[in-house]
């Protein structure tokens, strides 16, 4: 209990405005399409922060929660994008001090010979202090078939720091759902230390279309109405094909469409206006092999 006088009542709405959380959540809603479970979880974390602050005013104990997370989901569902956003959000919410993101994979943590792993992992952890450590494809850290694999050493150091330096850094593990499940089964220590298991759902066709338009707007392109129709037809067809990677497939498709658009503009050899430079036409999309194979 603190000696500060405890107020009788606290206005939560006022507290919410002062915390600056509102704009952060709003920005998240605006910039990320879909991902309802993710947004829900972030909202819950934000609410906890707010309630903790109020609890502190009443002199109640408000211990920092465990924020280590695991992101699971199919390729291209926005795990990495959200992780980079997450560091910023947690910083604004006041859970991490600096709000930088250190993104690593197995190569950055695990050494190549005995005694190489520990300093390497510790070096990364030192860099991540005060921010978010994002371990992409975390299941590669553990190789079941080789019990002398150095990954195990790295895992032990990680677990220790995740426990002892909970208020110094947040660890986010990411990977495909089935492999992560296996990883957690063979490393029960990880499962219990990771408080938030967030599953990233596949995007709906409509959401992918919206994402595509968002990507193009950022690059100063736009779709003609016919092109939009073509893309709307393209998405379910692409989904039916192997190696569909959600938003990543869409980005690749758009990159190829931009190539074709550039080629078309170049082939015309006429004077060109701004409108033609920024517009992607239906033919740029309909030339895709996805359409060719269905015919």
């Amino acid at each position, binding site marked *: 209990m603190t000696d500060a006088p405890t107020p009788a009542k606290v206005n939560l709405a006022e507290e919410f405005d002062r915390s600056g959380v509102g704009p952060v959540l709003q920005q998240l809603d605006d910039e990320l399409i879909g991902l309802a479970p993710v947004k829900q979880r972030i909202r819950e974390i934000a609410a906890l922060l707010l309630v903790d602050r109020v609890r502190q005013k009443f002199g109640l104990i408000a211990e920092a929660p465990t924020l280590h997370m695991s992101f699971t989901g199919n390729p291209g569902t926005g795990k990495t994008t959200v992780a980079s956003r997450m560091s910023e959000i947690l910083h604004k919410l006041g859970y991490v*001090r*600096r709000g930088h993101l250190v993104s690593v994979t197995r190569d950055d943590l695990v050494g190549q010979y005995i005694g190489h792993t520990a300093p390497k992992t510790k070096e990364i952890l*030192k*860099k991540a*202090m005060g921010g978010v450590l994002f371990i992409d494809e975390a299941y590669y850290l553990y190789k079941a078939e080789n019990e002398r694999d150095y990954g195990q050493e790295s895992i032990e150091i990680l677990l220790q720091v995740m426990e002892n330096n909970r208020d110094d850094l947040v660890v986010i593990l990411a990977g495909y759902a089935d492999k992560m499940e296996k990883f957690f089964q063979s490393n029960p220590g990880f499962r219990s230390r990771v408080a938030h298991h967030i599953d990233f759902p596949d995007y709906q066709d409509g959401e992918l279309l919206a994402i595509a338009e968002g990507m193009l707007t950022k690059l100063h392109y736009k779709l003609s109405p016919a092109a939009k129709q073509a893309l709307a037809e393209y998405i379910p067809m692409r989904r039916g094909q192997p190696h569909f990677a959600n938003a990543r497939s869409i980005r690749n498709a758009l990159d190829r469409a931009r190539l074709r658009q550039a080629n078309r503009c170049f082939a015309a050899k006429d004077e060109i206006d701004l409108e033609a430079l920024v517009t992607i036409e239906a033919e740029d999309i309909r030339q895709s092999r996805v359409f060719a194979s269905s015919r």
Partner: protein
Amino acid sequence: MRVTQGCFSFLPDLTDDQILVQVQYCLENNWAVNLEYTDDPHPRNTYWEMWGLPMFDLKDAKGVLIELSKCRELHGDKYIRLSAFDNTHTIESLRISFIVNRPAHEEGFRLERVEGRSREQRYSTRAYSLDRPEGKRYA
């Protein structure tokens, strides 16, 4: 005798919280923070052993404090100092350096007088601890 050198030498030793704030200031200025230790307290001894490499591209001071606590575990009976190097062109030197750990008991220095040519008197200082070999000076 309490050996002092570097910044804040006129102050009592900094606490870990105070060190944290100083280190954070260094990191925000993009200086590389470095830890060194020695058991030879003479002020002219500039060659201290390095504790690992200077810590580049850290964002948060906590990482330095973790290293410092590890260094104290191993060399808690020696002098440890923390310095920060500014690599800006035309500066390229230490911007800050202060002692963050000292032996529990510091024996101090003795004054040695040497008779020179024509009965000229020369002086030098020598730490009592240097009478013992390296590694056993503050055991």
